[in-house]
């Protein structure tokens, strides 16, 4: 029987296997060990780095709450021979160190005419649903995708999380590795041996000839649920998980849309200048003739994420909204 792991443990396994394979891989962030400077026990990290310091003494560091300094340090370390994997905790905190991401990590190689590279991975938790309020529930990968020089990865399954993290660590460019906080404890079959899933290659979660659904992160699971509901009515949807948002695998989406003629893009972050809008625009511009109806975006509202569970649950798209969007687009007859 296949071995299953949680999304969180799959990331942890990727970190451990790459640290074992490559001595230049180091890990740091706030409480990545947990317990430094305390009278009690070490090892109070709760995320994928838990226990890693025991396997790799000296190669896992705790940082003070100095994101600008330690994210910048990741850039400096990467440009001088290491492969740091840095933990930002909530992606929302990129606010306090955005210069390091936007102006240093992303641009260093270009500014020096290719005479340096920045093989750093910045891990960050994203997404709604954890009842953390507006400053702990954003997605923000759309901001990163807009910035040349960054790669952006957002796995939706444990298996992808491991394979993409291994690729991200081996990659020679700065990678924003987006971990959906509500997927941490979702389990799936994960091969034990190290394996690399190439960046920039989408995964077709489900085939279907009637409508193409592109969904990101946790929304992939809502899209599959929607597809199953629609299948009962004989509407077969392809569900595509881009997995990497930058570079974006447009070809896989194009091929599917050429078959289906219908596109629904699902993302829990706000639509304006977001990934859903961008994917819709790509298809509209490059496969216009293939579309039988307008592309449809199903996204979170143009609002911060509220705290109250009732309100927060109404924020992200869900299977019902996706079903409705698919029904309405496929209902349209061929263009007149």
């Amino acid at each position, binding site marked *: 029987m296949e071995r299953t792991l949680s999304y969180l443990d799959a990331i942890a396994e990727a970190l451990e296997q790459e640290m074992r394979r490559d001595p230049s891989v180091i890990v740091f962030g706030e409480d990545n060990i947990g317990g430094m400077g305390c009278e009690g026990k070490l090892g109070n990290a709760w995320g994928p780095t838990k226990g890693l310091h025991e396997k790799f003494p000296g190669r896992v560091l705790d940082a003070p709450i100095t994101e600008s300094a330690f994210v910048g340090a990741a850039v400096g370390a990467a440009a001088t021979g290491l492969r740091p994997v840095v933990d930002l905790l909530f992606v929302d905190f990129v606010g306090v160190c955005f210069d390091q991401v936007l102006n240093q990590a992303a641009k260093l190689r270009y500014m020096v005419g290719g005479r340096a590279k920045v093989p750093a991975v910045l891990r960050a938790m994203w997404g709604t649903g954890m*009842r953390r309020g507006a*400053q702990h529930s954003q997605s923000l990968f759309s901001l990163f995708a807009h910035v040349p020089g960054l790669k952006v990865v957002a796995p939706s399954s444990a298996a992808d999380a491991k394979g993409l993290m291994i690729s991200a660590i081996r990659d020679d460019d700065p990678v924003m590795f987006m971990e959906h906080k509500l997927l941490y404890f979702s389990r799936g079959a994960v091969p034990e041996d190290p394996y690399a899933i190439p960046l920039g290659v989408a995964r077709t979660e489900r085939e279907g000839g009637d409508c193409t659904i592109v969904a990101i992160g946790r929304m992939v699971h809502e899209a599959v649920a929607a597809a199953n509901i629609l299948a009962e009515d004989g509407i077969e949807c392809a569900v595509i998980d881009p997995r990497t948002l930058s570079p974006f695998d447009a070809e896989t989406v194009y091929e599917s849309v050429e078959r289906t003629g219908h596109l629904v893009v699902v993302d829990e972050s706000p639509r304006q200048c977001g990934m859903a809008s961008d994917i819709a625009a790509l298809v509209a511009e490059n496969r216009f003739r293939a579309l039988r109806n307008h592309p449809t975006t199903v996204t979170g509202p143009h*609002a911060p994420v509220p705290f109250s569970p009732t309100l927060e649950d109404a924020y992200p798209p869900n299977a019902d909204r996706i079903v409705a969007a698919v029904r309405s687009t496929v209902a349209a007859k061929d263009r007149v």
Partner: protein
Amino acid sequence: MATTSAVTQLGRDRLLDAYRTMRTIRQFEERVHTEFATGEIPGAVHLYAGQEAVAAGVCAALNETDYIASTHRGHGHAIAKGCDVTAMMLEIYGKAGGLCGGKGGSMHIADFDLGMLGANGVAAGGAPLVCGAALSAKMRGTDQVAVAFVGDGGANQGAFAESLNLAAVWELPCVFVVEDNGYAQATGTSYHLRGLNVASRARAYGMPAEVVDGYDFFDVLDAANEAVIAARQGGGPALIECKAMRFFGHMEGMDGQAYRAADEVDRLRADHDCLDNFARDVLGAGALTADEIAEIDGSVAALVDEAVRVAKAAPAPELSELLTDVYVSY
């Protein structure tokens, strides 16, 4: 240990207020702790129990029109600044009628009518805001003072260092209160501050700074009075560093506290309880009676019971609230 004169000169009413404030915070936090365990309270809740004398002492030096900006561990500051306990509880439960309509939660409790500019989910998030509130007071020609609370860990944020500099350069009427409770999550100050005081950083930016016993209401109040009065009179900013550890974990639900010494919390509760210290001082000075204290304990317990009852019974916010308050107009 406060002297009898220090105690008595404060006067009965203010002593009663001070005790009521600290007891309310303690009761509120102890109760949120037990209610959280039932699973009914959503989200991230950071309890203030143990540090009550800091919020109470600092806010006792402030007027209602003065401003404070808080941290993620904000219940104590909110209560000390006068926020309605039931409305706070409603907010923590994410219910309609909460101080922020249920949209903020524990990490964003605010009441602008009382000058409580909000808890903040970003470490040191309150410091720049307080520079602005102080600038506003200065520009509007009021004598308002603004106080920023920050933790020992948050004090390492660049935004905090910049705020010290800006406040000093602009000679703003504000006070920075560092609450050194020994930890930033599971990282100790002997590591992340190298065991040093934040106070010396503030002095390096050109403002006076004092380190006080955060378990002693009177010590905190004295330091706060000095700093607040100076700021109010145009003397510019100051920093107060208060040492007081938290009784609970970093966050409800997910902190086993293995990083703390086994008996640490027991020792704190036994020997470093600001409420015990206060009672000892006021009773010793004969300023308040045991009955008066017992009466407050009882009424506070009833108040918090009622707050929880109301919060549990209250409805969730209307779904339409999801899309309101994003802008004044759009």
